[in-house]
């Protein structure tokens, strides 16, 4: 069983989606995350184990490598694709309550900002880490973040911005969330952000990369 779960982790880490996929070249013709996740579930391995000891482990490895500049955006994207293929088989288990998310993470790019590449990467890695992700998209107002948190009690929130002119909107959103839903944990990120800025606006965390969001959420 441990072997199969490790194989699944490797498929995620290397971005091996399914048997047909030509990528990565050195795994051509092998079963991918798709086939192996199905196999593991068919064999009777608990869905939470397939998720936590297989899929999530793989995503954690690639997320860590990305934060160390050892792999780049394309590798993350392929890993996320492999993750999706595996997760598709877990959908019934989530619906029946057999498989569990670690929690909910609401994410969006702040008002006035349309950049989404970074936000999308964080969403993928956090979902790959076993959280339910509610992605509000770009140009998201404080009100919209608040509504999503109210709809998902206990959710943590991630705010992204690429422009210095829009990161100021983060302060307003943090304030609204903390006032209306006390106890909400907020992490911020994006190219112009720093941990000093995060502290200054009352956020609970800052990360320069997706893996840091996982560390924050797991804390």
């Amino acid at each position, binding site marked *: 069983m441990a072997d199969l779960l490790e194989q699944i982790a490797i498929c995620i880490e290397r971005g091996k989606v399914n048997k047909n996929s030509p990528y990565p070249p050195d795994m051509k013709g092998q079963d991918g995350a798709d086939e192996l996740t199905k196999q593991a579930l068919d064999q009777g391995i608990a869905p939470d184990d397939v998720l936590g000891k297989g899929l999530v482990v793989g995503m954690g490895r690639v997320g860590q490598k990305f934060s160390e500049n050892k792999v780049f*955006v394309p590798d993350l*994207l392929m890993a996320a694709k492999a993750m999706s293929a595996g997760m598709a088989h877990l959908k019934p288990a989530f619906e029946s309550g057999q498989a569990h998310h670690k929690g909910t993470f609401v994410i969006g790019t702040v008002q006035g900002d349309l950049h989404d590449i970074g936000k999308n990467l964080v969403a993928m890695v956090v979902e790959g880490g076993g959280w339910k992700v509610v992605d509000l998209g770009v140009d998201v107002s404080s009100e919209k973040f608040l509504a999503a948190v109210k709809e998902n009690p206990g959710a943590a929130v991630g705010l992204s911005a690429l422009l210095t002119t829009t990161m100021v909107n983060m302060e307003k959103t943090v304030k609204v969330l903390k006032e209306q839903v006390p106890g909400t944990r907020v992490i911020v990120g994006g190219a112009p952000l720093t941990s000093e800025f995060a502290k200054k606006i009352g956020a609970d965390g800052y990360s320069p990369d997706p893996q840091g969001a996982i560390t924050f959420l797991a804390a």
Partner: protein
Amino acid sequence: MVSILEMLDRKKVLVSDGAWGTFLVQKGLKPGECPELWNIEHPYAVADIARAYAEAGSDMVSTNSFGGSRLKLAHFGLEARAGELNEAAARLTRETISPDKAVFASMGPTGKILMMGDVTEEDVYEAFREQALALERGGADALCIETMTALDEAGIAVRAAKQNTRLPVICTFTFDRIGEGQYRTMMGVSPADMAAEMIAAGADIIGTNCGQGPEQMVGIVEQLRAAAPDTPIMVQANAGLPVRQGDVDVFPETPERMASFVPALVKAGAGIVGGCCGTTPDHIRAITAAAKKLG
């Protein structure tokens, strides 16, 4: 028609211009507003920017069209006006600066990652083709495909420009320093990879813009030159990374400090030097003086 390539033959170092985005913000552009729409709604403000750089010494001045592809304009519901907005962008610069200075028209990324499958290669090609043609119509002397990070998207842009217009094509990428002497775009592309692919795609001039500031640019130029011994190289660094102070962004690199890198950049192989985010006419004045000293 001003030929940048001829200018490069005559002058050792050409000076391009400085930032447009941060300049527009200074003139009142608000977050969430479409910059390219200013070509129609605030043309005098846009022309002021072109004039300011020309007067500061730029041999070549850019256009307010960085986000002008239909894919980017769609965020504002303005995709149907791509032709109009890009033509206006080129026309504004062309009619503002003196005839001996070149208009190099800006074409920035679509914001889409091709790998994700949100757009097809055909969509991206069409968007760049439309934009390039409009910029040519408006009077551009060259096209500048800039702030690129992905080989596939940039390659499509260069080909769309070369195959549909008669203009020389500049292509510059944005690199991060990931280690000692190691530079990669967020997509994992090195300066050497970029040089090979963009020249193969037909780029006449290659280079680097934006990024973390002027210091890392010398190393990047060296690697570009090593991979492309005969191609002219353009460098436009940020004035460092911005720090928000109250209501304004402060970019730490002064005109003097930015200009101090000019000799090293030229020695490394750069033939065109300018600035990106946070640079101003004062920066260009200093860069022009430094370039003059090199003869």
